[in-house]
């Protein structure tokens, strides 16, 4: 069946590149992840539940998920303000501030970790004035929260930025000319069109903060049940050769991560439906 005349011409190499892609993907990503799930099947359901609901694990999961949620909320609000100021206003240093929003992406997490710890330590530049107000940051759950806020900064800003730039100015003008005041225009016209991007950024920041390790462990204090995050507990269980425990915690975290990806994909589709392509 060679060279059917009506067929659209396509480029060569599909079979080869697709084969290599799938092979490489399987070796580096899929097989190792499958190994994790396989390992967890060595546990009975009761054992699995036992591990995951043990006091220390449950507390670590609560700390990781709870603080990540709060940090992502801060990222949502502050990210919204930052992206608005960066896109809509002109002020000195705007381009530099725009560029450094990506620092948490680029700065190695261990560097961020020791920098934040030193900054917020009781004798640190910010820690000292805060200590006088009676607020301790480094080596407390508040420190974990601070590190998670840091690591999540770019997500909301970078997901909302292109949408806000492309937002049609006419809809705002229309709202204003129909008698809406500025606040009504922002809250009823602009905010709803940014909502999918805002929520996507929130979800990405949340997912990142839940799994974050390097920037958190220095500032956390790492007290079991108080300031011990789930990824650290995985590392501790591994060092104790309690592989089953480490695996069970990892499976719970992975399942939540998959849920977040799924939600983000759905949101992106929703956004595409709401905003017709122009």
């Amino acid at each position: 069946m060679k060279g059917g005349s009506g067929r659209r011409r396509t480029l060569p190499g599909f079979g080869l590149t697709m084969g290599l892609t799938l092979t490489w993907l399987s070796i580096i990503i899929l097989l190792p992840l499958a190994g994790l799930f396989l390992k967890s099947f060595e546990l009975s359901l009761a054992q699995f539940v036992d591990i995951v609901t043990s006091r220390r694990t449950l507390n670590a999961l609560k700390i990781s998920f709870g603080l990540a949620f709060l940090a992502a909320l801060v990222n949502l609000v502050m990210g919204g303000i930052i992206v608005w100021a960066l896109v809509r206003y002109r002020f000195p240093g705007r381009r530099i501030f725009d560029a450094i929003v990506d620092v948490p992406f680029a700065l190695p997490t261990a560097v961020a970790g020791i920098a934040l710890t030193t900054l917020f330590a009781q004798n640190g530049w910010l820690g000292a004035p805060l200590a006088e107000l009676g607020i301790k940051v480094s080596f407390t759950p508040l420190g974990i929260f601070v590190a998670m806020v840091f690591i999540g900064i770019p997500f909301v800003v970078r997901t909302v930025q292109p949408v806000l730039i492309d937002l049609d100015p006419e809809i705002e003008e229309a709202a204003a000319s129909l008698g809406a005041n500025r606040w009504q225009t922002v809250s009823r016209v602009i905010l709803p069109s940014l909502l999918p991007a805002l929520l996507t950024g929130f979800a990405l920041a949340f997912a990142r903060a839940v799994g974050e390790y390097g920037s958190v462990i220095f500032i956390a204090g790492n007290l079991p049940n108080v300031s011990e995050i789930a990824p650290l507990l995985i590392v501790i269980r591994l060092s104790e050769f309690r592989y089953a425990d480490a695996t069970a915690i990892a499976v719970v975290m992975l399942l939540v991560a998959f849920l977040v990806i799924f939600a983000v994909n759905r949101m992106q589709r929703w956004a595409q439906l709401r905003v017709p392509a122009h």
Partner: protein
Amino acid sequence: MPKPAIAVPLERTDARSEPRWVRGLLIGFTILFLTVFIVLPLVIVFAEAFARGTYAYLAALADPEAQSAIKLTLIVAVISVGLNLVFGLIAAWAIAKFEFPGKTLLISLVDLPFSVSPVISGLVFVLLFGAQGFLGPWLQDNNIQLLFALPGIALATTFVTFPFVSRALIPLMQEQGTAEEEAALSLGASGLQTFFRVTLPNIKWGLLYGVLLCNARAMGEFGAVSVVSGHIRGETNTMPLLVEILYNEYQFVSAFAIASLLALLALVTLVAKTVLERHLDEGQRPSEH
């Protein structure tokens, strides 16, 4: 006097702008927040690194342990960036230039490492290659050391940095379509010629962009590498791992000296990224709007 005596209102009545005080407040919040969370941490890295002067800083970097960490970090980055460069290109070709069922799923799978905790990215390799792992006994019998050695570190880093190159290329290549390649092929160019003479020049900035980000992450990866490295001093410590060890030993100048190199790498990466983004924007949108 010919000039009108009426003061020009300072407040713009444009329907698309906020009152002056709101603008001031939002700009103030932005500057304060980014200064506290980003500028100060960056500044403190260098302040601490040079806290005891330039000599102590240089001595910390000249230390044999630091040297071996720098060397290992560079080797690991070359391996994992090289692998991801080649396979990122291949994957981007397959995904961006063809239509096939399951495309969205494949893209999600390629992006998967972004959503996995770095610690878990290390853990999966311990479960595969560790003494209690699936392949552990076989590796031991054949005297192959993957874990707590260079191959394990490179593998975990490759896992973590897997999406960077293809993710930078796929949207770019999709936008460029297949017309130019089809023209080259119809003029008699071979597939490889088409790739190297048509596709590659078109995507070179996007490729550089992906490689830069991939490299920054590869050199800075901490969680995944920490799990598979074994922390053997002078042997399996990358720069981020050495930062941790020195910091926990209260050798702050040394820890921050090495951290300052990594921070410098991050800053250079960001500058290059900003320049490249302008390049890419110009290529994609002929007119500024």
